[in-house]
């Protein structure tokens, strides 16, 4: 059952990342990977909310496997993030590459804190 929850979450998260990435990338012309940044921050917000809700006892811990390990895990990505950063660096946009890393890490971590705080405020 645990495996099924993770697999279903993963099967939902990856296409959701692809579609979100596409939607964001179609709305700007720059080389900066806003799409991946968006899914990564959204996934971090989601996992923060979920962790807060589970800790507050408002959500069953099985939801962690479906929505946390599966959905948010597959919605977010490290491989695309790192490859896009490499692309920026190799195309001469070193500043944008560094900004992508700094903004992704700080915004992702901040989104977890924000989600966690929001869940605590709602159910804590």
């Amino acid at each position: 059952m645990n495996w099924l929850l993770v697999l279903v979450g993963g099967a939902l998260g990856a296409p959701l990342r692809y579609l979100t990435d596409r939607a964001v990338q179609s709305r700007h012309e720059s080389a900066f990977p806003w799409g991946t940044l968006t899914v990564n921050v959204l996934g971090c917000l989601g996992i923060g909310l979920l962790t807060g809700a589970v800790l507050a006892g408002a959500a069953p811990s099985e939801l962690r496997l479906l929505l946390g390990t599966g959905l948010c895990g597959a919605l977010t990505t490290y491989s695309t993030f790192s490859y896009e950063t490499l692309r920026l660096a190799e195309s001469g946009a070193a500043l944008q590459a560094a900004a992508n890393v700094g903004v992704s890490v700080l915004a992702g971590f901040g989104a977890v804190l924000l989600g966690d705080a929001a869940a605590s405020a709602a159910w804590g």
Partner: protein
Amino acid sequence: MPEPPPAEDPDVDLHLPAHRAELRSGRASLLGAVALGGALGAGARYGVTLLWPTPHGGFPWAVACVNTAGCALIGVFMVLHEELGSPHRLLRPFVGVGVLGGFTTFSTYAADTRTLLAAGRPLVALADLAAVPLLALAAVAVSARVTRACVARIRNAEGAR
């Protein structure tokens, strides 16, 4: 001689006509390939965390290694994918977007850092936050470079024959 920049994005690059068109021609097969890959990738990641659990307050090695390995693999995959010329239209969506995108995770990485902070381990949290991006970027840079060098050697050997 400077190396040419990688031309293609693992997820989607709307500057490339083939990527722009891929959702129009066979939406179900494309999203199906991404979903199947995502399920396999997430399942593999879950398996690694079961085999290699992180003790309370400890450095999350399993997720750090999953992310580093996934970044090394995408470097190899994308270089080979570009070398193929006209690969199957579902290969990149399945492997790049699905399997490797689902295997690696940004959310668990960030949430683990938060958990470490809450457990009163700020130094371990900071080490996780800083070390994983460095490992991941080193992995993708080295793997792409080594794969390109291997491809060039094979090309040269073929050309000499």
